[in-house]
């Protein structure tokens, strides 16, 4: 077909404007990724504490060691045991959230089916590198977490997680002064990489530190249900 005969509609990205959950699903699936030690598990714990009274929440964790994150969440008693499942990733955390999502999808669908009323499914990736990103087949939206102690040049380096995540969280801003990191520069560089998509600075020393992220999630749920 000559180029001028191709219907213009083919180039309009309908999907990017549609924000609805497939197959009448109620649960919004949110991926939380980021490097080792950036605070993903703490963020998930805080989000569960902040949201569990108003939403039905379940969590799938992907720590390199199967049950470490799940145990951390269970010990802090943020959710009942039967709402947390740990998934083995065969030494490849990025494969399990991006290329071959079978194990995670099985865990997500299993939890949502078992609880029936789930509003929010959090999928926490194992700590990984800056090129990791969640498959759209696994999550609806994703949060990428960095921390100031990991180096203030990381947002400038970019990568799919930094540039494409629906929300970028720059965590441990309370530590910046001790490790010589420039939070303002991190926020500025992140803004340039992200084409206007949101960036939040957090300190998760207490649960309230995650309240902006929790609010962003409830806004997403509302948008998907609208």
């Amino acid at each position, binding site marked *: 077909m000559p180029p001028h005969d191709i219907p213009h509609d083919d180039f309009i990205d309908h999907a990017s404007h549609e924000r609805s959950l497939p197959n009448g699903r109620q649960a919004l699936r949110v991926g939380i990724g980021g490097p080792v030690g950036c605070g993903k598990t703490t963020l998930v714990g805080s989000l569960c504490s902040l949201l569990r009274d108003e939403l039905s929440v379940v969590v799938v964790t992907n720590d390199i060691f*199967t049950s470490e994150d799940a145990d951390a969440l269970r010990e802090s008693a943020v959710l009942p045991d039967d709402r947390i499942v740990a998934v083995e990733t*065969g030494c490849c955390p990025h494969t399990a959230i991006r290329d071959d999502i079978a194990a995670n999808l*099985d865990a997500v669908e299993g939890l949502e089916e078992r609880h029936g009323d789930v509003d929010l499914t959090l999928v926490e990736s194992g700590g990984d590198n800056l090129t990791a990103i969640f498959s759209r087949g696994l999550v609806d939206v994703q949060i990428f977490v960095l921390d100031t102690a990991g180096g203030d040049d990381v947002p400038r380096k970019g990568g799919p997680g930094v540039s494409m995540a629906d929300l970028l969280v720059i965590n441990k801003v309370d530590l910046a002064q001790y490790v010589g990191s420039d939070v303002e520069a991190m926020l500025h560089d992140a803004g340039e990489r992200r084409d206007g998509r949101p960036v939040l600075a957090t300190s998760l020393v207490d649960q309230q530190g995650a309240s902006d992220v929790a609010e962003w999630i409830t806004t997403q749920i509302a948008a998907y249900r609208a």
Partner: protein
Amino acid sequence: MHAALMMLVDGRFPAGGHTNSAGVEAAVRVGDIRDEPSLRRYLTGRLATTGIVDAAFSAHTAGLAPPFDEQLIALGLEYSARVPSPNLRDVSTRFGRQMLRAGAQVWSSPLLDAVASGQPGVHQPLILGAIAQAAGGTPNDAALLSLHHLAAAVTSAAIRLLGLDPMSVAAMQAEMSEQIDACANDADLWAGACPADLPANSGSLTEILAEDHGRWDARLFVA
């Protein structure tokens, strides 16, 4: 071999295969696999035991003709009877569910429909056979796929867990290819056999280590 079937050979097919070490993680922990020679011995043992059994059930399923429901139930019971470890039986249905989720989105066939709409908890070798048939494969293709998946799971897990030289391990796997091919020699026989007469080879250590592995509190692989 054709393009559709090659997708099933490829470890990138999204059915969760990368989380299966086929017992290697547990065998490394107890020192049964330390290096290439011990890896080769392990794979030889698995091919001759669980490898033959899985290949036979995949080959039989790939050769099924309707009506399917009762045949699938009988095959499931026969396979369960050949896997003493409850943990391995659970893992098998879990991998089966993951493979069915991917395969049923990609292909369709009366057999695959029967598997998807029948009782849940179908074992992975049966799912592989059904998908291989839907992708145009013969019983022999299904058996070879099953054996290749085993060899690939064993070798890639050992490379990841022990840092073995991947080229040298690939050469070892290639050297074993005649042996692997030979394991599938009876595929047509298996396709025509009564399920109760399918091979029942087993290794007690495989089952014992798998039970132990299932109780670890920190695993990298599902099994």
